[in-house]
């Protein structure tokens, strides 16, 4: 690694240098990530889009510490990190709420794990319940809530842990279109209010552009950054921004690159 990239990695919130990752599967080696480099600055909202199976989720798993960075380095808060479990908030497509806990007790799970006394943790969760649209539902069990509410409860669980990096793996993938767009607006509000650094993985090009400062387009497997697009749109963005320039040309650019990726890589690459 050159001195310049080292310098850059150390000043970024999250930095990935030359991440390579293979999975062994039935005696064969499947390269999943092939030389991923990217950096996210403090307070940025960054999205990763790419074809299915391009290693997006693996990348989030590496940043979250669920998997090691293979050959390559991961930097968090200016320090090299290998398995930074418990240092970043991670939100899954599924809400993963525990069905035997009330909504309130689900949201304090992370605090409980950290050893915060239950009463204190509950008080902190209650302060934020309104902002997360959970007011009046704190004592309900998850089955009684709508999909959007459950997802917000899962968000609150991540936010309460106090980590300033949030990784979102298609958090709105399972929601209907209307709920999804409401949740997107709500998420932007949350991001502004809590000053988090967010990395979002999504299939949805429009969602990525609407929410992000920068979009990374991944190649098909083995994944690497194929295109980086800075989204130069003023904030706050209203919903009708998506029907005007320059949003439309951004979208066209991303879709064209995605389509090409799909054509170039019809066959699985095995090594």
């Amino acid at each position, binding site marked *: 690694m050159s001195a310049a990239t080292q310098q850059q990695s150390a000043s970024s919130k999250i930095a990935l240098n030359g991440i390579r990752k293979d999975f062994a599967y039935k005696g064969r080696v499947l390269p999943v990530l092939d030389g991923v480099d990217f950096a996210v600055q403090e307070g940025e909202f960054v999205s990763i889009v790419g074809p299915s199976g391009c290693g997006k989720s693996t990348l989030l798993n590496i940043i979250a510490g669920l998997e090691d960075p293979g050959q390559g380095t991961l930097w968090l808060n200016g320090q090299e990190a290998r398995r930074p479990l*418990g240092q970043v908030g991670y939100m899954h497509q599924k809400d993963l709420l525990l069905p035997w806990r009330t909504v309130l007790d689900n949201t304090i799970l992370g605090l409980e794990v950290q050893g915060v006394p239950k009463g204190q943790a509950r008080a902190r969760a209650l302060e934020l319940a309104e902002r997360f649209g959970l007011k009046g539902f704190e004592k309900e*069990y998850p089955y009684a809530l709508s999909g959007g509410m459950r997802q917000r409860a899962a968000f609150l669980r991540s936010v309460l842990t106090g980590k300033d990096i949030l990784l979102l793996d298609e958090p709105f993938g399972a929601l209907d279109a209307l709920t999804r767009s409401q949740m997107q607006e709500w998420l932007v509000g949350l991001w502004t209010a809590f000053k988090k650094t967010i990395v979002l993985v999504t299939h949805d090009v429009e969602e990525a552009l609407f929410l992000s400062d920068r979009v990374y387009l991944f190649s098909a497997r083995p994944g690497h950054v194929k295109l980086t697009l800075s989204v130069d749109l003023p904030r706050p963005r209203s919903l009708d921004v998506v029907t005007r320039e320059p949003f439309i040309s951004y979208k066209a650019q991303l879709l064209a690159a995605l389509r090409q990726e799909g054509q170039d890589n019809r066959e699985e690459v095995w090594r």
Partner: protein
Amino acid sequence: MEVVRKPSTQKKEGSAAAKPWAASRPALRLLQMWALPVLGLALLVGVWQATVTFFSIPAWKLPAPSAIVNELMVSRALFFKHTWVTLSEALYGLALAFLFSVVVAAAMAFSRTFQRTVYPLLIASQTIPIIVVAPLLLIWVGYGLAPKIIVVVLVTFFPLVVNTMDGLRSVEPDMMNMMRTLGARRWQIFTKVQAPTALPYLFSGAKIAATFSIIGAIIGEWVGASAGLGYLTRSSVPLFLTARSFGAVVILALLGIGLFLIVALVERLALPWQYNARRAKALEEDW
């Protein structure tokens, strides 16, 4: 809704309680649940009674239901004494099996090596007929309660441990990963996620074990005992006290059903979230 549902919660209930336009449905449901089985039983008993009376079958060959009830009333002190013995054997055995199974299942969930070593042995042990082991226990631990309790432990341990272990291992990998990203330690994942997930499975095992425990106690008594309902049935037959033998069988059946119902009741009280989620799901489907 995509609540993480245990297999046991997927049973659909014919619940119609919340349909205002179908007020007769709860009554119908009650009828289906209770009235029909009771009617069926009454019919069976009636035919039995009539057959015995009509063909004048001697009581030592096949006692009429009325004769069995009569015997139960007349010899109630005797029945009570022997019931108490059998019930104690079953309950002691169940309690021990419960403790062992929870410890072993937890150990298997924690250690793959332990699981690989012990699990095949557990399955293999189930292929040995208990009726072969029971007499040997008399040689090893003598008469009295001990050999019967051991037989109960042997027959009830397996359903308990297998169900509990399946429950502990049924946690979704995503759920485990979520806990790990929250910074949870192995033990915290166990107590906060795995153990509660396993509870419904544990109760399923306990329902099976509850009925098995009575059978186990009887097997234990059958090979050598001086008290208990198993002993009573066995000692009554050579004396042609057939009604007494039948009476013991009736009590045994009631004991099995009773233990099962107690476990089911404890389950409902201990896992209100599961019961409520099941109801909510059923209502949703109804509407």
